[in-house]
């Protein structure tokens, strides 16, 4: 792993992006090391409290799943909340996948390309255009609901899954472009120049040189996009109102009645919906950090 601030190109052999072996596990020896570990354990416990409440509520019977019981273990753990929630939500979870997987992949690819152009193929006015694209990231979504719907309806995309994909794409491109622009900024200019001297077109430079080195950047971008799109509520609610095609967050919201709520089912539903994102984070979290490491942070 490079110790300097810029990234050096590793030797051109099979480059593995697997995480480094955990060679540093050892018992704490000094008081300082104990202290660090103790503080982390304490903070971890505090961080897990809301999850504890969520899961124990999900395992209760409806009558017991009320705020006054939140600290107790469930007297008789019952999976009924989960089964009922899954039954209500499974179609919607599928809909969410249908929207978010293509949207996050598409956004990341186009963002990678844009980022490459803005960082390595600069032209006059490119900073201005980049800024203008980036401001798009900061739109309060409530402000654009009505014009969004009118536009989608005029183009025949209102109420459709592709329409929702396009919406997520449009509002995800700025962040994806930002992430990759910073990522490619740390790619040495010499690599590009070497390829250009060899006669490659700009497109070939992108596909043959930059793209293969972009895995960490893609991990960051896909995680970011997947999380924000999966958990998005407002666009899902407004762009695809048909109950058969609703995404999971919208369906979860409908499980709370207007005045009374069955908390065990709702909490179980919330836990189920969080699983895909949690799994993604679990498996890729060290790549996430490595991706940021390679320069998108600056």
């Amino acid at each position, binding site marked *: 792993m490079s110790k300097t601030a810029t990234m050096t190109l590793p030797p051109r052999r099979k480059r593995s992006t697997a995480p480094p072996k955990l060679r540093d596990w050892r018992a704490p020896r000094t008081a300082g090391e104990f202290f660090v570990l103790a503080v982390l354990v304490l903070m971890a416990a505090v961080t897990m409290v809301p999850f504890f409440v969520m899961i124990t509520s999900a395992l209760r019977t409806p009558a017991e799943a009320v705020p006054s019981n939140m600290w107790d273990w469930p007297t008789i753990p019952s999976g009924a909340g989960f089964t009922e929630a899954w039954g209500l939500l499974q179609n919607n979870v599928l809909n969410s996948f249908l929207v978010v997987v293509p949207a996050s992949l598409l956004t990341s690819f186009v963002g990678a390309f844009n980022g490459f152009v803005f960082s390595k193929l600069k*032209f*006059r*006015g490119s900073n201005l*255009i980049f800024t203008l694209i980036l401001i798009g990231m900061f739109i309060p979504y409530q402000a654009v*609901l*009505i*014009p969004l*719907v*009118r*536009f*989608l*309806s*005029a*183009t025949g995309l*209102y*109420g459709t899954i592709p329409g929702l994909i396009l919406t997520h794409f449009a509002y995800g491109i700025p962040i994806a472009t930002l992430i990759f622009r910073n990522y490619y900024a740390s790619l040495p200019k010499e690599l590009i120049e070497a390829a250009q001297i060899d006669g490659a077109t700009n497109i070939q430079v992108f596909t043959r040189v930059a793209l293969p080195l972009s895995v960490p950047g893609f991990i960051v971008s896909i995680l970011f996009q997947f999380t924000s799109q999966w958990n998005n509520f407002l666009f899902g*609610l*407004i762009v695809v*109102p*048909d*109950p*058969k095609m609703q995404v999971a967050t*919208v369906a979860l*919201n*409908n*499980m*709370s*009645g*207007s*005045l*009374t*709520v*069955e908390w065990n089912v709702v909490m179980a539903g919330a836990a189920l919906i969080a699983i895909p994102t949690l799994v993604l984070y679990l498996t890729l979290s060290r790549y996430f950090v490595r991706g940021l490491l390679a320069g998108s942070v600056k």
Partner: protein
Amino acid sequence: MSHRTVLRPLAAMGAALALVLTGCSGPSEGTGSETSEPTDSLEIFSWWTASAEAAALSALTTEFENTYPGVEITNAAVAGGGGGNARAVLQTRLQGGDPPDSWMAGPGELARQYYDAGVIQPVTDVYDDELRAAIPSAVLDNMTIDGEIYSAAAGVGRGNVLFYNKELVESNGIELSANTGMDDLMGTVDRLKAAGVTPFCLGDATIFGDQVILDALLLASLGPDARNGLFDGSTEWTDPGVAEAVENYQTLLANANTDHSALTSSEAAGYLADGKCAYYIAGDWAYGYLKQAGAEDQVDFGYIPVPDTAGEYIAIIDTFVVAKDAANVVNAKRWLQSLSTVESQRAFSLEKGSIPVRTDVPMDGFPPYQVAAAKDFAQDTIVWGFSTGQIGTPSLLQSFGDAITAVNGGGGVDAFQAAMASAS
């Protein structure tokens, strides 16, 4: 190739394209289906997604399916935001040219806004003579705009009920009846406090709970005519009657459970059932919550009209309208017709805890509260509910909610009156 010369006209094109598309597109004009061929589906839209309300809606759809088998009903309900999410979805669906065939509205001002926007169609042909005769004329008038009827009503709720915990009230020597006046009620507050009892139950996690209460208090202080005058300009919001109502509200607030801003209406009803407080001013949906909490009518709790409003009925009516461009017009009108039949009205109200709009529905089998309420509805002066949007614009109701929130935060009566005066 200069990029500026390519990009500038491109920019202008893109912006113009966006403006044109968003500005000019909208619900398609005048394709209101004239076909009399029934289709095989129907889409209805509401915000009844759970428990008693969903069960009541289900009762209606079951009745419809029995009469018209083969029609597939899609129930496009959206929860949350106190109906706000549903309104957002409805508004955007109408803007996007994809209206539901029939949606939940209220008679009065809300229907009028839809009428002005040209998105609903008259349903006068649903009303035959028998139906017209069975519905009180005040209700029919409220559903009529420019001579045509635009809605059909599923049930009626009441907004001016005071529920009380029998044990707490009787053990403190308090007697409540339809003749109890507001001063009498407020006079019992000290007695209850001395006995260590919280006088009022309150649940205003959403401001709706408070709007219902103040609506009833306004009626108590002003009487039906002056109160209705608030909405046609003949009564000023600076009227001393309004001030009195707000002062009563402040007394209630000062003597209610302190965690009220975290409680929903149903949780507040639970407090009453558990004996944590003595009085609960609410709509009669609270009756269902009390039963759910295990309390028994006349054993654990009782009810009277809100003091000084006996003989007056704040009516909260759940109605459906039909979209002008409904894809399934025939089925939508059948839907309105179906929910107006005697059987549907019975089934709906039994689930929801409301009473039928029709006065010719037999009330046997209904809990005693609803039997009594139906009698009252038939003979009382009907006053339209403000807190549920039956009278008054949505904009005014929003100002009402904001003004009450200011009072909740410690604001004064004068500020309330000034805010409402400038909003109307």
